[in-house]
């Protein structure tokens, strides 16, 4: 099965894919922005400030999913002794970190008109900040120890410690009395969000997912070229 995941074969696809992903991202984002800023209705309680949800929620979802993927890829990569899975994880991390920062900053902007404060040491917000610190540690570890043999173990330890925080982020609003509202969208039970708001939210999530795919492809190509360069140095 792994022959289909050989870097040479992957590179032939990933080097061509970014331009198509960029085009698809621009189209999806244009539809999403029109829906989020113009077509979707204002909330009866929060008025127009609810529109911040269309950037805040997708950013938080994607940053959590990317961190879970980093952990999964690092563990499998370590078990199978496959360096390529670590490279995929490394290429996913920058967009995960940026989405985490976007979720924190847009959350703070949303907090001011809704709660009357930019920041509160609430369980959800604090656990998201801790997740950002784990992302920062992961990226710094790659920068500092990239050429050392211990890099795989160091990044694996960081993601294993960090993944403990992911269910805390997810369930903090249910476990503790927090300022942050509980989840409005539930896969297993009925969502409390109206379809006129759910649709733009899904479109914006798709646009953000396409952007993280675009960044991943570009970063992964860079990593593969770096390896080629190291190979040429040895000639």
């Amino acid at each position, binding site marked *: 099965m792994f022959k289909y995941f*050989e*870097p*040479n074969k992957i*590179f032939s696809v990933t080097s061509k894919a970014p331009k198509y992903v960029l085009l698809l991202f621009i189209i999806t984002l244009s539809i999403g*922005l029109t829906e989020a*800023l*113009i077509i979707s209705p*204002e909330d009866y309680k929060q*008025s*127009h*400030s609810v*529109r*911040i949800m269309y*950037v*805040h929620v997708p*950013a938080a979802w994607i940053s959590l999913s990317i961190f879970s993927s980093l952990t999964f890829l690092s563990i499998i*990569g*370590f078990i199978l*002794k*496959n*360096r*390529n899975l*670590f*490279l995929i994880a490394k290429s996913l991390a*920058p*967009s995960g970190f*940026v989405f985490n*920062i*976007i979720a924190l*900053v*847009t959350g703070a*902007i*949303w907090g*001011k*008109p809704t709660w009357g404060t930019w920041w509160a040491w609430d369980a959800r917000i604090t656990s998201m900040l801790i997740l950002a610190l784990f992302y920062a540690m992961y990226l710094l570890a790659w920068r500092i120890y990239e050429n050392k*043999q211990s890099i*795989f173990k160091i990044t694996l330890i960081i993601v294993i410690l960090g993944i403990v925080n992911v269910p805390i982020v997810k369930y903090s609003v249910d476990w503790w009395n927090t300022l942050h509202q509980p989840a409005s969208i539930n896969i297993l039970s009925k969502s409390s969000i109206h379809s006129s708001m759910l649709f733009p939210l899904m479109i914006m999530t798709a646009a953000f997912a396409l*952007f993280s795919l*675009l*960044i991943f492809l*570009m*970063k992964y*190509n*860079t990593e*593969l*070229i*770096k*390896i*080629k*360069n*190291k*190979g*040429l*140095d040895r*000639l």
Partner: protein
Amino acid sequence: MNNEILLMNGYGIYVWSAFIFTFISFTFLYVVIKTQYLKERRKFIAKFGTLNAKRAAFAKSNSINKEILSNTSII
């Protein structure tokens, strides 16, 4: 209509700053990653151009796949 989209009942400053921050972050990340990619690509082209015919042929036959697999033991 235009004013309503901009002002949003007084919430415009919050909504627009959240969207603008998001897209500045997107642009920043895209530019950083693209610059890294172009830098490595330029390095590769420069290095490959300095190789003599024999070494270039060897480099071509040496797939990046082998490069990656040759390092798996360091995990």
